[in-house]
């Protein structure tokens, strides 16, 4: 190994004298000048190493861990925000669905609903009940529908507002021949189809369309609904 080669090898990697590069080691043993050169360069390397070893800021380590902790915390926060948004969307959908189920009408016609309503409240009213509602209090209630009864239609057992498929309506119960006769005064709306006549096994009913409201009469088969219809038509007066 000539001098130049040796110098190149040592300068390129002073540590190579520590490895078992036979050629290099032989050259070292052969020539004291080479050995000295290697030692000098090793010394230089030591100096270089010390020079390169600049002080590291004390808190750098902590800073690094802190930044990472903050960064991963932010990622987590972003994730929880997404989860929250998903949960909110599901909740809103659920709410809408519930609303839809709750308030959309299960009945398609006035008649069907009227019959269901009557059956639902059948037990509350007895035909021989002694309760009476006066014409004045009836007309007070009718005022909400801009209507007025000129004279009493019969024995009025009950008169009050009630929900008729979500609409505010007037529910009247009269004494009938064998069972109570129910009269609904319902504001006009498009949700339920107007059915002039309807019936089932026990009850039947008729609807009267007035300008402001529909009047629905439901009674059992013994009742002459035509009579009732006529009475109502001639008795009722709409204010506007």
């Amino acid at each position, binding site marked *: 190994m000539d001098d130049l080669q040796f110098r190149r090898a040592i*300068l390129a*990697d002073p540590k190579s004298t520590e490895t078992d590069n036979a050629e290099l080691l032989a050259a070292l043993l052969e020539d004291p000048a080479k050995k000295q050169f290697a030692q000098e360069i090793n010394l230089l390397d030591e100096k270089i190493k010390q020079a390169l070893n600049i002080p590291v*800021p004390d808190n750098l380590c902590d800073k690094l*861990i802190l930044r*990472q902790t903050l960064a991963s915390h932010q990622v987590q926060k972003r994730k929880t925000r997404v989860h929250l948004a998903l949960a909110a969307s599901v909740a809103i959908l659920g709410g809408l669905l519930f609303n839809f189920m709750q308030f959309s009408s299960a009945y398609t016609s006035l008649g069907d609903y009227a019959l269901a309503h009557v059956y639902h409240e059948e037990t509350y009213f007895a035909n021989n009940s002694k309760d009476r509602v006066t014409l004045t209090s009836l007309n007070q209630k009718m005022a909400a529908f801009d209507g007025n009864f000129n004279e009493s239609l019969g024995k009025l057992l009950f008169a009050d507002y009630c929900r008729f498929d979500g609409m505010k309506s007037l529910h009247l119960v009269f004494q009938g021949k064998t069972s109570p006769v129910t009269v609904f005064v319902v504001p006009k709306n498009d949700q339920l189809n107007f059915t002039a006549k309807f019936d089932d096994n026990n009850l039947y009913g008729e609807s009267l369309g007035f300008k402001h409201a529909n009047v629905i009469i439901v009674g059992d088969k013994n009742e002459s609904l035509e009579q009732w219809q006529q009475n109502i038509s001639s008795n009722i007066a709409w204010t506007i």
Partner: protein
Amino acid sequence: MMTKQVRYEALVKALHGDLYRYAYWLCHEKQVAEDLVQETFLRAWRALDSLKDEKAAKSWLITILRRENARRFERKRFEMSEYEEATITDTKAISNEQNIENDWLREKIAQLPPEYSEPLVLQVLGGFSGDDIANMLNLNKNTVMTRLFRARNQLKDALAAEPKTKGVYNG
């Protein structure tokens, strides 16, 4: 099984010093070096799962740091000052002869062209072999060895002409 967090903290503790020094010799500014190290470790955290071999951690981090440093130049770069970069190295610790020499040598190293100083730092500080350095810098081994040779040769020559005192020569 270590958690990701524990692995990360171990990595930071073991290697942040080496990485900071490497960054410093890459950019010659303390603040920039610190930022680079921070960016590097943040990236390392995100990609920690891709680090399979813990032994390769150091070269992996240095590769990230070099990319990060290159990215610094892609962005708009503001000139920090008109001073020569070499003159703003650490000049505070002047207490003994060793430090004076260190200072002086630091200046010389900082004045080396980056393509010479980088392999030198990797070899002396990082303890990497010529093959490793060649891999990291995408050079072939002969080129790396030549640059190492030239770097040391320049430093040796400079050292031979070293002035014995430091500072301003007044009368």
